[in-house]
């Protein structure tokens, strides 16, 4: 029991994921600055932002909204992201804790933060937040199917087991999933799915700051917004780690493998950052078409290749 709490709160849970995710967030902003020929924020900037919101700023509750849900949503978002992070990282850190079917659980846990953003937004009573929430719902509807198909494709490729450790084991012996043509075809939709899950630029219509002023998060301030930031930091670690587990032979924490593991995560984040810096924001129907038509098509082609054994 105490051990589980330690996993959840310190390592690899809340504290570790928060700090590492904060670093990744700085990395993302620094790369963005470099792409735009700017100098960029200092290394500790994400932590300053988080602590400022947590300690210094006032928290304002909406006058005519559902306050309980408004306060609860960020807490549950952090909770969902952290549990997903623990379940994903533990098998890769060498603790044999997984259970049969934990992939499915992770898949649903990863949907919790987005759902909580929606609930928080609609309970704030702000019309712009409602617009953001409706866009987020449509976005979830479009990428979630693709994401599920991608995960199913990886399961299909690595021996029909829905357990994280088995998945890692088959890649250990049979080579990384991304090493084959069908693996690459599955990897492309997966990257776009986590781009949408993180709400990064081609898919940031739910919090478009220039048109609907941060949409879902418009009413959040102080501690609540700090928690939302924290959940975003944690997701920025969790989702690339999940991709590394699905496609790139997982992460290892001994000797020179530490370097490779860090490089895998940084590589995925770099990819996301470059996509977000070279694309304009899509309209919601364009995003839906993108996922429903093109990404699902890629996944289906990948399935055919898997069936042919390529």
């Amino acid at each position, binding site marked *: 029991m105490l051990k589980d709490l330690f996993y959840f709160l310190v390592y690899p849970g809340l504290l570790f994921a928060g700090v590492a995710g904060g670093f990744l967030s700085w990395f993302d902003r620094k790369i963005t600055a470099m792409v735009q020929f*700017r100098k*960029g924020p200092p290394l500790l900037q994400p932590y300053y932002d988080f602590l400022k919101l947590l300690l210094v700023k006032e928290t304002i509750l909406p006058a005519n909204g559902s306050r309980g849900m408004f306060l609860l949503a960020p807490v549950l978002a952090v909770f969902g992201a952290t549990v997903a992070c623990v379940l994903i990282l533990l098998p890769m850190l060498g603790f044999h804790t997984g259970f049969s079917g934990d992939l499915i659980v992770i898949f649903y846990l990863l949907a919790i933060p987005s759902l909580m953003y929606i609930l928080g937004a609609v309970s704030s009573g702000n019309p712009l937040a409602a617009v953001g929430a409706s866009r987020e719902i449509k976005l979830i509807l479009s990428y979630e199917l693709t994401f599920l198909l991608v995960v199913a494709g990886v399961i299909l490729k690595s021996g029909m087991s829905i357990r994280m450790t088995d998945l890692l084991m088959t890649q250990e012996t049979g080579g990384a999933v991304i090493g084959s043509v069908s693996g690459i075809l599955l990897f492309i939709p997966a990257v776009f799915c986590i781009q949408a899950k993180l709400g990064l630029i081609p898919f940031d219509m739910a919090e478009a700051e220039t048109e609907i002023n941060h949409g879902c998060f418009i009413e959040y301030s102080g501690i609540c917004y700090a928690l939302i930031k924290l959940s975003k930091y944690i997701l920025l670690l969790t989702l690339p780690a999940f991709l590394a587990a699905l496609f790139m032979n997982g992460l290892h924490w001994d000797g020179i493998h530490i370097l490779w593991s860090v490089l895998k995560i940084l590589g995925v984040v770099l990819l996301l950052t470059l996509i977000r810096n070279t694309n304009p924001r899509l309209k919601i129907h364009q995003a839906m078409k993108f996922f429903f038509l093109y990404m699902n098509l890629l996944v289906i082609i990948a399935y055919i290749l898997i069936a042919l054994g390529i």
Partner: protein
Amino acid sequence: MAFKDFIFRKSLWLFHFGGASCNNCDIEILDCLTPRYDVERFGMLLVGSIRHADVLLVNGSINHKDKERLLELYRQAPKPILVVAIGACGCTGGIFAGGYPFAGPVDQIIPVDAYIPGCPPKPEAILSGIVQLIEKKKTEKAHA
């Protein structure tokens, strides 16, 4: 307390309110975000919602309609909030000071922490004003 103040100075998020501006000051404020000036070096970000703001940048002459909105914004901002009046219009009213729609310079409506004069002020001037604001927060604490 000193720690809180340090954190606050390190991460000021800006919210931009343009009154009845001639639009020149707005452009110069946006200039500060461009690669050449880059206020993100100081940890500043332009945010779209007043709920996330730490600094309220006000430019342009404030007429009677703007006055209501400015007061409402100030009321809705989470405290602590700093206010910076930008441009001749924001500081004193400038050439609009005598006009009939004019509702007073910014500091007669809400408390102002820093003034950046100029018509329009150069981005360098805005940056130096913001740095001075940060320094002022520092010395205020040292005296207190």
